[in-house]
């Protein structure tokens, strides 16, 4: 039979066809010619005649290529040929990969779910991190915006600035281009229905300008608005505008009453603007400072902060040095007031995320670990699967496939799995973001802006691709390294435990170590929360209702406030279910609002820097009984002593111990202020238990209680002891208060809720970390199980031989368990070392437990080893069921 292919190829030569396509044409035509040749021969012709006639079939008006030119797309250059063949190969790999994955749905499903969990968790956490930490602030030159505060000391953490200090800072420093002050305040807004208390802020006129804000309606403040005696003006937030004015543009020029004073609304801020908290109303700061105003004194530090913009080219350390130098000058000039005040400069962007940065970094590390574990698991699966495919790949290698081509094909398969995992992970991530948003308390971070956006999508695509490479490369390289000769000889039989086993084992070690780090982290947070719930806050938390309100200065002077307190208490205590009620200026756990220096009568006055500070807490009678604060010595205030004549005080144990160690504090005297203070001496009549004022994890400060008559303001808190669930009584209590003043706005919480809020950061970290740790544990368990199952299948013959030679079932069980537990225990060891280093990151979140807590480490090691033991035991038990005869026959 003549060779037709050469003939056909020669005629197609000038056509430059795609090689694959050309092969198809050649094969088809060759077949036709062969059939025709046979036919001519069978008609009784000679071979020569048949050859001549067959060849004539290929003749046409021009060369064959010419005729084919029309229907066949041609290739023009060598480069595009290569490109086309790369694309053709890729397409072929993709289709082949799809078929392979569909042929093993179990493998595919497990791999995709594993990756989806890892990628989903990363997507969700990254979306939060992007929004909170990475996204630039939407202000011009935002990286140069800083906030100036006083430094604060151990004794007095109060960081507000006094106004005269601010003026000196502004005039004497050289690092700042522009500065503006702001003070947060609460305003009672009347003349809107219903009357509300809203968070507001007093700002310098250039505050908005520094942030580059443009009003959506009207105008923002001008220098003329920002001075004492100017016409009172206000700008309002977009939310407040919509809520109270229905988004009406005619709001400009309308007036609102803030704490009784009339303000003209001049503009509405752009939607979404918020800086360090939500604020509904902004008024010029300068309006406040009428000559002789109390807040203009240097000794008065209040919650005034300074927004500043660094001059271009000035670094943060330079600015800090500059401000410290000025603060030191002031300290020398005004030693009485400015001793130890100092000055601090922080980037605005850092302040905005202060509380959550640590939590987020811990979580990012944790989800990173989970993804790595997922990768390790899938790598293991791929390795195991690769062993099964060794024969197939060996045949291909033997037939001349290039190794590069096989690696490309295996990588295509892993990228396909990664892509599926990425898509599923994205969906999971989108769902988790919603769950996360409901889990994270808004006090920690504003989550309404967290969503899937382009950077998050890019991140997900990126990690999916990296993941695909991570878990695909090792199996692909190892597989392509197969020696076709030896593995073909072994075809049909399982290969030894050799190199595959070693690779699987190292991965197991890595997986167990990572899971251990996560579990230790979660364990430490669990212990922290446990410790926190065990902390005695110093009072009885159950059945306690708290209410906050703002008495308008317009309606209430000092006299009327005291009358209101008395009247309100009487009416509340008459309510069924209410045992007692008491007013107080600052609630426990919420931070003390009135920290003052004090001296005692019977001891020498210490130097200024050593003068102790205490939280002075004005209360109404009955406070200790209502709160359940135990009396340690002496007595508490009587109702008649509430008018503060004579001047008494009740102190806490810490204060008594600190000032009069080993003495009886009752009958001693103290007074607020330093050596030159003119405040009245107060006699100590009682000592009560310590109360946690600044959160559970903080030591109780020195405390001194005073009657409300000494000091009170419009911002009041009320505590009510009830018979049973306190929130059940909130309605009748609110009604009773409104019967005294219907315009009062009330914010009601049970003490339980307040207590819960103080642990929010730790609880959130625990919830998320525990979720991730459980995920890691499950993945690690599945990983160990998968590898051991495979190992058992591999060692079936060996087990069969051992059994046939007289090994007991126990021997076999032990054999397999030891094989599995070796890498596990190695992983536990390495993981403990890694956790030892990694948990330092957690230090700032822990309470009452060391980052290297041996109990946690041991507990986690036992837990992880037990899970591993179960994961090994299941396949090991299967090994014992091997029938020696069947296993040997396999051979």
């Amino acid at each position, binding site marked *: 039979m003549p060779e037709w292919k050469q003939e056909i190829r020669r005629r197609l030569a000038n056509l430059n066809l795609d090689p694959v396509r050309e092969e*198809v*044409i050649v*094969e*088809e*035509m060759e*077949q*036709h*010619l062969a*059939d*025709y040749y046979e036919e001519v021969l069978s008609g009784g012709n000679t071979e020569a005649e048949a050859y001549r006639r067959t060849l*004539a*079939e*290929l*003749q*046409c008006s021009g060369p*064959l290529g010419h*005729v*084919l030119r*029309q*229907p*066949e797309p041609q290739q023009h250059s060598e480069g595009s040929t290569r490109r086309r063949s790369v694309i053709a190969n890729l397409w072929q790999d993709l289709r082949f990969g799809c078929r392979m994955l569909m042929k093993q749905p179990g493998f595919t499903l497990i791999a995709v779910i594993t990756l989806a969990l890892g990628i989903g968790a990363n997507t969700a956490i990254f979306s939060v991190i992007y929004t909170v930490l990475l996204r630039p602030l939407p202000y011009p030159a935002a990286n140069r915006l800083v906030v100036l505060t006083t430094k604060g000391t151990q004794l007095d953490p109060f960081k507000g600035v006094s106004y005269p200090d601010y003026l000196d800072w502004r005039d004497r420093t050289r690092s700042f281009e522009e500065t503006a002050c702001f003070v947060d305040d609460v305003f009672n807004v009347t003349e809107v229905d219903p009357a509300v208390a809203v968070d507001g802020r007093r700002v310098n006129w250039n505050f908005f300008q520094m942030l580059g804000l443009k009003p959506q309606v009207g105008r923002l403040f001008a220098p003329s608005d920002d001075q004492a005696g100017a016409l009172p003006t206000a700008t309002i937030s977009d939310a407040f505008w919509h809520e109270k004015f229905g988004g009406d543009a005619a709001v400009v020029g309308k007036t609102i009453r803030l704490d009784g004073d009339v303000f003209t609304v001049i503009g509405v801020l752009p939607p979404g603007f918020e800086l360090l908290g939500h604020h509904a109303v902004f008024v010029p700061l300068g309006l406040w400072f009428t000559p002789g105003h109390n807040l203009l004194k240097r000794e008065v530090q209040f919650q005034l902060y300074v927004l500043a913009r660094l001059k271009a080219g000035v670094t943060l350390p330079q600015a800090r040095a500059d401000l410290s130098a000025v603060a030191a000058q002031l300290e020398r000039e005004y030693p009485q007031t400015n001793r130890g005040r100092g000055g601090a400069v922080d980037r605005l962007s850092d302040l905005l995320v202060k509380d959550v940065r640590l939590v987020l970094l811990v979580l990012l590390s944790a989800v990173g670990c989970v993804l790595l574990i997922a990768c390790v698991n899938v790598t293991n699966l791929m390795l195991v699967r690769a062993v099964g495919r060794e024969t197939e790949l060996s045949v291909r290698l033997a037939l001349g496939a290039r190794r590069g081509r096989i690696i490309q094909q295996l990588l295509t398969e892993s990228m396909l799995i990664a892509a599926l995992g990425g898509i599923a992970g994205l969906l999971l991530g989108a769902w988790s973001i919603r769950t996360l948003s409901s889990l994270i308390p808004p006090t920690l971070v504003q989550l309404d802006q967290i969503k899937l956006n382009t950077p998050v999508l890019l991140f997900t695509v990126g990690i999916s691709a990296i993941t695909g490479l991570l878990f695909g490369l090792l199996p692909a390289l190892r597989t392509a390294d197969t020696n076709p000769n030896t593995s073909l000889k072994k075809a049909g039989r399982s290969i030894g435990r050799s190199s595959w086993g070693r690779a699987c084992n190292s991965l197991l070690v890595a997986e167990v170590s990572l899971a251990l780090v996560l579990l230790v982290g979660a364990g430490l947070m669990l212990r922290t929360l446990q410790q926190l719930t065990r902390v005695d806050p110093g009072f009885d938390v159950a059945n306690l209702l708290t209410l906050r309100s703002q008495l308008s200065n317009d309606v209430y002077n000092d006299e009327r406030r005291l009358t209101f307190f008395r009247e309100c208490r009487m009416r509340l205590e008459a309510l069924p279910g209410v045992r007692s009620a008491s007013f107080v200026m600052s609630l426990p756990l919420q931070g003390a609002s009135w920290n003052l220096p004090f001296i005692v009568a019977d001891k020498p006055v210490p130097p200024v820097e050593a003068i102790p500070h205490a939280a002075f807490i004005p209360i109404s009678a009955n406070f200790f009984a209502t709160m359940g604060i135990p009396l340690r010595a002496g007595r508490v205030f009587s109702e008649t002593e509430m008018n503060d004549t004579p001047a008494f005080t009740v102190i806490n144990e810490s204060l008594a111990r600190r000032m009069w160690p080993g003495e009886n504090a009752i009958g001693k005297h103290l007074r607020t202020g330093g050596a030159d203070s003119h405040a009245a001496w107060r006699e100590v009549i009682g000592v009560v238990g310590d109360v946690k004022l600044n959160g559970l994890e903080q030591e109780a400060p020195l405390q001194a209680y005073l009657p409300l008559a000494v000091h009170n303001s419009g911002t009041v808190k009320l505590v009510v002891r009830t018979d049973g669930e306190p929130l059940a009584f909130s309605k009748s209590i609110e009604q009773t208060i409104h019967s005294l003043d219907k315009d009062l706005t009330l914010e009601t919480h049970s003490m339980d809720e307040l207590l819960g809020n103080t642990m929010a950061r730790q609880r959130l970290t625990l919830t998320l970390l525990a979720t991730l740790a459980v995920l890691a544990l499950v993945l690690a368990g599945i990983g160990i199980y998968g590898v051991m199952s495979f190992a058992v299948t591999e060692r079936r013959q060996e087990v069969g031989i051992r059994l046939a030679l007289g090994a007991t079932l126990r021997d076999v069980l032990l054999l397999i368990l030891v094989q599995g537990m070796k890498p596990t225990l190695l992983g536990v060891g390495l993981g403990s070392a890694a956790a030892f280093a990694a948990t330092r990151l957690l230090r700032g979140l822990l309470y009452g437990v060391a980052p290297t807590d041996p109990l946690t480490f041991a507990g986690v090691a036992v837990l992880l080893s037990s899970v591993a033991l179960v994961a090994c035991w299941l396949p090991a038990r299967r090994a014992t069921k091997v029938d020696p005869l069947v296993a040997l026959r396999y051979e």
Partner: protein
Amino acid sequence: MAMTHIVSRVFDRELKKGSAELLILSLVEARPRHGYEISKLIETRSKGALKFNVASLYPLLYRLEQRGWIQGRWVEKAGQRRRRYYRLTSEGKKTLASQRSAWESFVAAINRITEPEQA
């Protein structure tokens, strides 16, 4: 005589060119067929009057395939070499219907003209 032969050959070629697509589409209408089968059928059914050699048949098949009227597919049968079978696509079915009716009206028109006139 020679002149008639040349005219007849030109006429023949033009006719073939116009009708070739119709022939192939018709042949794969009932069931898929491979190239050799198609060329044999054309030759036998036309009693040798029409014949496509390899050099003209396959470019035609590829063109029809390119247009999406037919689709080729390798089929392996036990004990045989694999062959490429062409089947009519749904697009091809529509084309066949319209070409067929165009052909019929064309033939009818020619017939009406070329019929001997009745005296």
